[in-house]
């Protein structure tokens, strides 16, 4: 298991080198990219985080995934700082014997990262800056994994 919180960009191929374990049959990766606004006027996305708690929260979420599914490997990377549209924000990867576990665990990691890891996004446009509001559907997505909390 590897969890990284960093300002620097990451390279998916570099991060995935040697990922997995003997017996791995399925690897799923999710990569989040800074998406421009519908009007295309996004200058940057600033990501604030809570040093210390962030690492602990990501490690806790990854550990829960490992307790729930048989995973040969888990990777979570999340950036902070100022990013521009098209840049990679974060990634998760899961390795398992079978595809179902790898898919479910990656989906689970994303849902928990979204609403339980202490990151806050601010959108910077020519018109000013605005904090991204949490979406009810992201919170609701966690119910799928109940009884996890």
């Amino acid at each position, binding site marked *: 298991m590897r969890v990284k919180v960093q300002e620097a960009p990451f390279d998916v191929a570099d991060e995935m080198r040697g990922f997995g374990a003997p017996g791995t049959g399925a690897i799923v990766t999710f990569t*989040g990219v800074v998406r421009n606004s519908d009007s295309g006027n996004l200058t940057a996305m600033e*990501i*604030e*985080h*809570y040093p*210390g*708690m962030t690492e*602990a929260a990501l490690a806790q979420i990854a550990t829960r995934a490992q307790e729930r599914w048989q995973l040969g490997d888990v990777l979570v990377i*999340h950036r902070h700082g100022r990013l521009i549209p098209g840049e990679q*924000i*974060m990634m998760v990867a899961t390795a398992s014997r079978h595809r179902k576990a790898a898919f479910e665990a990656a989906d689970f990691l*994303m849902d928990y*990262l*979204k*609403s*339980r*890891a*202490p*990151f*806050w*996004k*601010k959108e910077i446009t020519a018109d000013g800056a605005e*904090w*991204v*509001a*949490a979406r009810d559907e992201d*919170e609701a997505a966690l119910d799928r994994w109940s009884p996890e909390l």
Partner: protein
Amino acid sequence: MDVLYFAWVRERIGMPRERIETQAATVADLVDELRSREDRYAAAFADLSALRVALDQELGAFDAPLAGVREVAFFPPMTGG
């Protein structure tokens, strides 16, 4: 006790952290104490349903006791991923 603020809570209060000596028994008591200090605190803590709290870097509840806690953080719902 160290009190930390993030995102728009930090912006409204105007600083990322401060050291507070308090006798507050719970998080809610601490919030009441802060609100009564100045308008900027009252503005930041106007709607608790829009806020989350962490006690020693673990998510907690507003009725949680503060005994033994060294670091309290206030912030809006998280928007990672």
